[in-house]
Structure formats: structure tokens, C-alpha cells
């Protein structure tokens, strides 16, 4: 630690210090005192005191003032304490699921490449730097009030020194099944490293291209990014859902969404989708996917179980063709069967009395409302409704919950209507769809129907001679059904096809709603934050593989796919945790991470100083001393004045 002055020229002010003597020399007007007899005081002073310098009595007050002036001059010279600290480097390793991808050669993974690249980077860093290693998972998903994201990277607890054996440390690092954190979270993380944690350099190794913004907060020399090479083509599961109709509990349906890019489709022949429940395994052959978009496959009559796993296979055998796929983690997904619950249905109809007929359906709780009473805001804020049925009416916009529209009016703003007809003949319906199950469509003859025109998000399920009469689809994660004929009143066994179709619609809508809260990998669970969420402690990870989970302080990081079993209020409840991230699956077209700035070159310069000199200003302390001395001087003068007044 060294003491120095940033503006030593200010010491020239010391030449003015003798001016402080002037007031003392000019202070020749002595105070007047009247004494009873002056002859007792005559010639009582020593001769030396009568001279000029003898009369200049430098009281302690003068010394105090001199000290104050000296301190002010020192403050003007800007004194600082200089000390040097060893350089600090933060190595941030992308541990998202996409880092599990194989490189084009298929020999190694991007994560292994990242480790080797870190070893290479470290070899270029001069000795003396302190190195801390952080991972991006968990990162950002950790609630601020629960956990310091920096503390989440347990590998960064003890900084290393360049030259030490980093291989063992790197070997301990695991790649997670979680997706990449957002660019904002990464940016905040880097800023915290550089500003709060005082790191001089941050080296970020990732498979994502990093896009620098137009104006960042960090200097270009502080953040260095290394983007690894591309991976093999990849196909992955984007959705995996189970459906259990409350009206037919033993009939389990499943849908599996496949996400694939164009290059993957040409190189990876998807052959089978396997759905297993831990005891049985059912294989379904898949036709070759031709379009480079998400495609959903439906499966019915699955055995009843609590949890399921879906896998995609690229060959005939058990592990056939897996080595050709870029990322293995997205080739499987998990789902648990939602518990059967009473369905709360809101019926909006100009003739709400027709809804009374729905009361004969078991497990249904019906609320009737006229279109005039329908308030979308109030309905949205009331989460007790599973779905809403619009009968002969339609709102201004799609409701934020699953909904069915029975014969919407001509002037409705949501659906385009076509030709109308009396007793149209149903000509075509989609086989295997939950909406068409068990429905004998030849016997379903609506008295009046009006054709529907499909839009981009819905597809025809049932068609007739006049056009589509039933459309279904998902929008913003919610299911919607619209029929061109009236299904109410519910006649039960007196009109079996219409009744079964009604039950299918209610089941499809409610089943989607029951799966509205799946867990994504990378999520953080806190036992305090949400009473609706399953709470720790986790008892076990039962299916299908041994999943390594990592509790972090009070939170739990769900960074592995699988079925977790939670205990809440003494009851165990399974929950599926899936990656299901098209962004992670899309290896050929990776999403750019928007961070504040990326630096070039991507290695630490050899000319960088190993140590960094810090300057700590001293002037606040000197200023405090000046204030104390001024207070002391004030007290001194006040005391003298008081004594003089008493005299």
C-alpha cells in the first residue's frame, strides 16, 4: 500500500501559509481592562514581550488553524492510498441443454469442446490471475430474494490460480437439461461480475452467437465471448401431453409434438415414437416428416399409469439411430396423468336455460350467464373456470382460457362463416382425434348447420357437404373448438352422437387446462413462494432414470428432465419436468443471445497487467478531520469569549 498525491502541485499553496501570521501581527489592539491601581502593574512585562515578535504570541489556536490549513492543502493535493490486487478472471461456461449436442463429427459434445477451449484459453492467460468458474445454469431463473445467482455456481466458491490443475475442476462441471437463460439475465449477470464482484475479465464460452448491442455498459476489453462450432442436425420433442377425459377416465390419450429443422429432416429418418409407463412400452411407427415445422402425433388407449415417458427413435432397434441426432436430451419427454377434478364450465348463451341440460353430466359444475353479463376481464380474473362455452354468441376476442363456440352468429368477429344448410350430411372427420372418439358421425345429423372457414391456427375436424362444421386448434397455448351446429341442449342417450361429441369437446378443453402447469427444466422451486406449487422436500426421482437434482439453499433447481415426486401436506404428487424447448432443439439455427457487449479479441492479452492498482481516496477522512478541528476551534473561541465576558 502506497500513499501518494494525484495533484502534488497543490502543495504550492503552502507558500501562502505565512499569511496566517498576518492577523496575529495586526492584532495589536489589545483588549482594555480597568484596574484599581496601575502602579502595581507598571513595568511588569518582560522586555522581550515588548518587541514585535514578543508580542506575537502563537497560541494553541494558531497551531490548530495552521493544522487546518495544512489539511486543506493536503486535500487539494488529492491524496490517495494505492494498493495492488491480483487480477481476477471469471470463466462463464454455458451449461444449457444445447451444450450436450454432438459436434458434426459425432466424436465429442459441445460441452467437452468448451472445456478444452477453456483449457486453451487458460494456457494463454499469464500466471497470477485469480480465476473463478461460473455456470449459466442455474442463472437468472433463481429468484433474487431466494438466492444470489453467483452463489448458485458452486464451482466458483474458491477461485483458482492460473497454472493450477483446472482439469479436475472442469470435470466436476455438469451440463444441465435446462435451456439458456435470457439475454437480459446474462447481461445482468455479467454486469454483476464486472462491477460488483470486481472481475477484470469475463470469458463466456457458449454455443450461441452473442450479439453485441449498439451501446453497452461494459468495455470491450472486459467481456470476451467464445462461440463454439455448430452441431449435428437435431430433431426433438416439443410437446408431450396426456389427456384423460373426466367422462371416460380409463381412456388415456397422448399427443407428442415433434420439432425438426429442414436439414434434420433430410438426414434423420424418424421412425418410431415410444411411450412407456415404466412397466409397458408401446411403439408407434411414424411416417416420415416432410415439413420443417412442429408436428403433433396423437396416441390413444394408453394403459392407465401415473407417469409416462415419450421417446423418439430414428432406427428400428432400441437405440437405433440415436448417434445421428445432435441432441439426445430432447429425444425424450415426461408427463404425469393429471388428477381427475370437477370441471367448472361457464356457459354464455342468450338462452341460458338450455344449459340446465348439462347438469346431468357427471363431474361438471356449470355457471350460466347471458352475453350481456359476460365480462371478459372478470372471467379472466376468476380462475375457477376450466373452460367457457359460447352458445349462439361470441365475444369480441378469444377468451384467455379454453373455449368452445357452438354455432357462433353471423356477425361474430372471431370466425368466418360459410354456407348454411338444413340437416347437412357429415362427410369426413379426423380419425384418432380426441374430439371424434366414439362418435358415430353417420348418425349425427344437425337440424341446422353453417359451414366454418378455417383460419391459420385451427384445422377442420369434421366436414360436411357444405364445408367444415367443426374446427379445433390451439392459440397462445389454449385450446379452442368451434362448431357450425348447435349441440345444446344436451340430450344424453336420446342423441348419443351429439352427447358423445359434447363430452369429447368438454374433455378436450378441460384436459388441456389441467396440464397448464408443467415444469420446465431450469425452473427454481421455492417452498415459500407459491403454495400451489409442489413443495420440497423431494422424496425421490422415481421414473425413468436416476436424476441428479441439486438443492440450492432454500430453492430447488429442476435442471434435469424426469418425473419428480413432491410431498405437500403429507401427500405425494408426481410432476414431470421437461426441457421441451424448440430453441434448444434448433441447433442448426441457434438463437442469438443479446448481451450488452462482446469483446474482441476473444483471448486475454498477454500484455494485460497481472495485478491491478486500486486507488482509495483519502480526502474524505482528511475533510472529516478538518471538520473536527474546526469544531474544536469554534469550541475554543466560544470558551474564551465566555471567559472574557465573565471577566
Amino acid at each position, binding site marked *: 500500500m502506497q500513499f501518494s498525491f494525484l495533484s502534488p502541485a497543490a502543495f504550492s499553496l503552502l507558500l501562502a501559509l505565512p499569511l496566517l501570521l498576518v492577523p496575529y501581527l495586526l492584532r495589536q489592539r*489589545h483588549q*482594555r481592562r480597568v*484596574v484599581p491601581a*496601575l502602579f502595581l502593574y507598571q513595568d511588569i*512585562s518582560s522586555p522581550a514581550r515588548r518587541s514585535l515578535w514578543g508580542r506575537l504570541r502563537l497560541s494553541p489556536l494558531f497551531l490548530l488553524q495552521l493544522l487546518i490549513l495544512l489539511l486543506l492543502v493536503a486535500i487539494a493535493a488529492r491524496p490517495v492510498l494505492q494498493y495492488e490486487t491480483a487480477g481476477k478472471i471469471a470463466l462463464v461456461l454455458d451449461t444449457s441443454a444445447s451444450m450436450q449436442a454432438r459436434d458434426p463429427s459425432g466424436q465429442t459434445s459441445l460441452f467437452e469442446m468448451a472445456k478444452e477451449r477453456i483449457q486453451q484459453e487458460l494456457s494463454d492467460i499469464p500466471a497470477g490471475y485469480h480465476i473463478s468458474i461460473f455456470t449459466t445454469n442455474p442463472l437468472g431463473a433463481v429468484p433474487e430474494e431466494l438466492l444470489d445467482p453467483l452463489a448458485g455456481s458452486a464451482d466458483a466458491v474458491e477461485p483458482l490460480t492460473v497454472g493450477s490443475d483446472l482439469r479436475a475442476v472442469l470435470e466436476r462441471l455438469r451440463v444441465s437439461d435446462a435451456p439458456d437463460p435470457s439475454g437480459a439475465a446474462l447481461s445482468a449477470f455479467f454486469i454483476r461480475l464486472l462491477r460488483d464482484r470486481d472481475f477484470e475479465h469475463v470469458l463466456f464460452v457458449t454455443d450461441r452467437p452473442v450479439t453485441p448491442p449498439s451501446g453497452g455498459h461494459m468495455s470491450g476489453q472486459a467481456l470476451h465471448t467464445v462461440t463454439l462450432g455448430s452441431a449435428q442436425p437435431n430433431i426433438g420433442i416439443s410437446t408431450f401431453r396426456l389427456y384423460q377425459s373426466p367422462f371416460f377416465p380409463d381412456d388415456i390419450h397422448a399427443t407428442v409434438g415433434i420439432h425438426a429443422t429442414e436439414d434434420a429432416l433430410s438426414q434423420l429418418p424418424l421412425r418410431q415414437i415410444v411411450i412407456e409407463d415404466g412397466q409397458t412400452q408401446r411403439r408407434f411407427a411414424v411416417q416420415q416428416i416432410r415439413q420443417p415445422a412442429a408436428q403433433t402425433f396423437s396416441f390413444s388407449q394408453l394403459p392407465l399409469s401415473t407417469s409416462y415417458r415419450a421417446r423418439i427413435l430414428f432406427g428400428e432397434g432400441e437405440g437405433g439411430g440415436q448417434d445421428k441426432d445432435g441432441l439426445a436430451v430432447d429425444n425424450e419427454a415426461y408427463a404425469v396423468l393429471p388428477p381427475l377434478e370437477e370441471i367448472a364450465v361457464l356457459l354464455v348463451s342468450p338462452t341460458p336455460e338450455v344449459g340446465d341440460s348439462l347438469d346431468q353430466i357427471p363431474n361438471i359444475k356449470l355457471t350460466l350467464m347471458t352475453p350481456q353479463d359476460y365480462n371478459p376481464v372478470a372471467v379472466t380474473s376468476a380462475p375457477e373456470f376450466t373452460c367457457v362455452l359460447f352458445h349462439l354468441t361470441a365475444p369480441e376476442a378469444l377468451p384467455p382460457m379454453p373455449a368452445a363456440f357452438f354455432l357462433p352468429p353471423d356477425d361474430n368477429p372471431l370466425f368466418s362463416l360459410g354456407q348454411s344448410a338444413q340437416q347437412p350430411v357429415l362427410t369426413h372427420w379426423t380419425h384418432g382425434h380426441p374430439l371424434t372418439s366414439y362418435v358415430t358421425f353417420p348418425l349425427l345429423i344437425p337440424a341446422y348447420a353453417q359451414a366454418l372457414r378455417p383460419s391459420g391456427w385451427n384445422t377442420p375436424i369434421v366436414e360436411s357437404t357444405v364445408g367444415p362444421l367443426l374446427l379445433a386448434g390451439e392459440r397462445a397455448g389454449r385450446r379452442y373448438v368451434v362448431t357450425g351446429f348447435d349441440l345444446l341442449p344436451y340430450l344424453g342417450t336420446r342423441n348419443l352422437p351429439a352427447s358423445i361429441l359434447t363430452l369429447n369437446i368438454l374433455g378436450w378443453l378441460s384436459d388441456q387446462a389441467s396440464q397448464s402447469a408443467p415444469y420446465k427444466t431450469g425452473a427454481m422451486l421455492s417452498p415459500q413462494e407459491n403454495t400451489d406449487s409442489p413443495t420440497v422436500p423431494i422424496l425421490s426421482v422415481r421414473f425413468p432414470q436416476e436424476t441428479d437434482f441439486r438443492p440450492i439453499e432454500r430453492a430447488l433447481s429442476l435442471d434435469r428432465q424426469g418425473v419428480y415426486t413432491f410431498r405437500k401436506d403429507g401427500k405425494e404428487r408426481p410432476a414431470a419436468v421437461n426441457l421441451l424447448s424448440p430453441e434448444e432443439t434448433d441447433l442448426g439455427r441457434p438463437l442469438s443471445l443479446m448481451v450488452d457487449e462482446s469483446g474482441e479479441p476473444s483471448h486475454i492479452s498477454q500484455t494485460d497487467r497481472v495485478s491491478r492498482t486500486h486507488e482509495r481516496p483519502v480526502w474524505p477522512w482528511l475533510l472529516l478531520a478538518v471538520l473536527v478541528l474546526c469544531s474544536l476551534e469554534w469550541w475554543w473561541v466560544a470558551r474564551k469569549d465566555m471567559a472574557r465576558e465573565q471577566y
Partner: protein
Amino acid sequence: MLPPLFTSDYLSRLETLRIQTRRRFLGSRPGGHVSLRRGAGLEFADYRRYTPGDDLRYIDWNLYGRTDRLYIKQFQEEEDLYTSLFLDGSASMAYPAQDGKAETARDIILSLAHVVLASNDAVKLSLLSADTAAPTTTPFFRGRQRLGNVAEFLDSYRPAGRVNVVQSLARQLQQSHHPGKAVWVSDFLFPLSDVRTGLSLMRDANFDLVLIQVLGHEEIDPPLFPSGARLTDSESGAESVVYFDTRAKQTYMQRLDRHNRELQSSCHQAGVHYARFITHQDVPHFILRELPEMGLLM
């Protein structure tokens, strides 16, 4: 209006005292002090031969039996005492202001006056002041009821100006006076030659004199002002810059001590009682204890 010191209790205790003189003086009325005049007192004085017309009750028949001659017993007459109180009215009595020398001197004079008045003796106050226009003396008062007159006279006591002690004393003594007890209260911070001259004048006026020197506490132990001060003489107005440090204070103390010792020596040589009072002391204690111990009061 009497000062606060003069409570009824203090006045009662003062009334138990009497002025004591070392000499006999002629009084004008019967009193409590042995007079030079011989008469019908209780104290035997002398014999003289009987002459016709003498009171036969005073013939000493025992002596006649032994000598066959008629002698008349003579007794000392007991008369009142004239007491003159001289108070220094110079400006030096007003300084140091916070010491209250003037007030202290006034209380001492008033206490002595009450002692005299309570003894049915006569008391007169004389103010040694520079102002010749203002009344500087009172007539002789008798009786304790005249204490108010004395206090009223002292109410106008404002020390000021430069006083020539010798001239002022001479002027006071030239006016009508009666020999008797005299008390001179001052700080006596003027040249000792003036003091000696004043003592001579008092002795010539046939006074049994007592000097009471009143000094302020800060005159005894003055504060330091080492950074210097312009000192002004309270009477002459002369000025001098003095750096009153520890060494100067030591010199001052030696000078004051020598001055006081010489004053006391002069009093001793002149057969004059001398007492010193410092302002921070207790006036009642000084009057009721110290002065009787000195023989001024009894």
C-alpha cells in the same frame, strides 16, 4: 432600603456589639463609655478634699475615721461615644467590577453604623470623594431609628473619580468633628505616603482610628492575560500595555504583598488597628467574629 444582607437576625446580632475604644473621649450625653469627665459614674476615679457645698453622700467616712479629714469620692463619668466612619469614594473601589468592593465596603460601614446607633452612640459618615459638590458627610446620628438615614446616604455611594486622600481627609476634618472612634474603609491602593499623611491627620484630630482594607478577590489572584491588554488606571486614566503572564503575575503578587505589609507596618507604628477583608469572605463573620477578636468591637 437596607441591603439584602441586613436581615432582622443579622441586625439583632449586631445590636449585641459595642464599639470599643482604647482611649477615653468626652461625650455629650450619658452613655456606655467611660468618659474623661468625672462625675456620677460607677467607676471610682479619685478623692478630693471636701468643700462646702459638696454632696455629703460622696464623703468617704472610712477615710475620715482614719485621717479626721473629709474627702469626697470622685467617679468616672460614662458618656456616649462619637464615631466617625470614613469611606473611600475613589474609582478604585469600583474595580474589579465583579468583586463588588464598593458594595462590601458599604455593608461593613453600614454594619458598624448600626452597632454604634444601637449603642445609643453618635455616628457620622464621611465620604472621601472627588465630587465636592455632592454631600460628602452626614451629621451625627443617634439612635437605631436613624439607620435608615445612614442607609439612604450610602445609597448614593458611587465610587468615581480620582481622590486626593490627604486633601479630602483634611477637608472632612476641618468641618465640625468630635474626637472619638474613627474607622477608615478603603482599598488603600494608593501611595503609602498618602496613607501615612492621612494617619497623621487622623491622629491630630484625636481619633482612635481603625483601618479596614477591602480588596477584591481578583486583586489578590488576578487572571492571566498573556496575550496582552491595555490597562487603564481607574482613577488617573493612565494606560499601559501589559502582558500579564505567569512571571508578571508573580511580580504583581510580590508588589501587592509588599504594599500591604508596609500599610500594616505604618498602622502599627501609628497605633492604628488594621484589618483586611477580601471580597469573597463573609461580611457577617468579619463583623461578628474578626473585629471583636481584634478589639474593635466588644
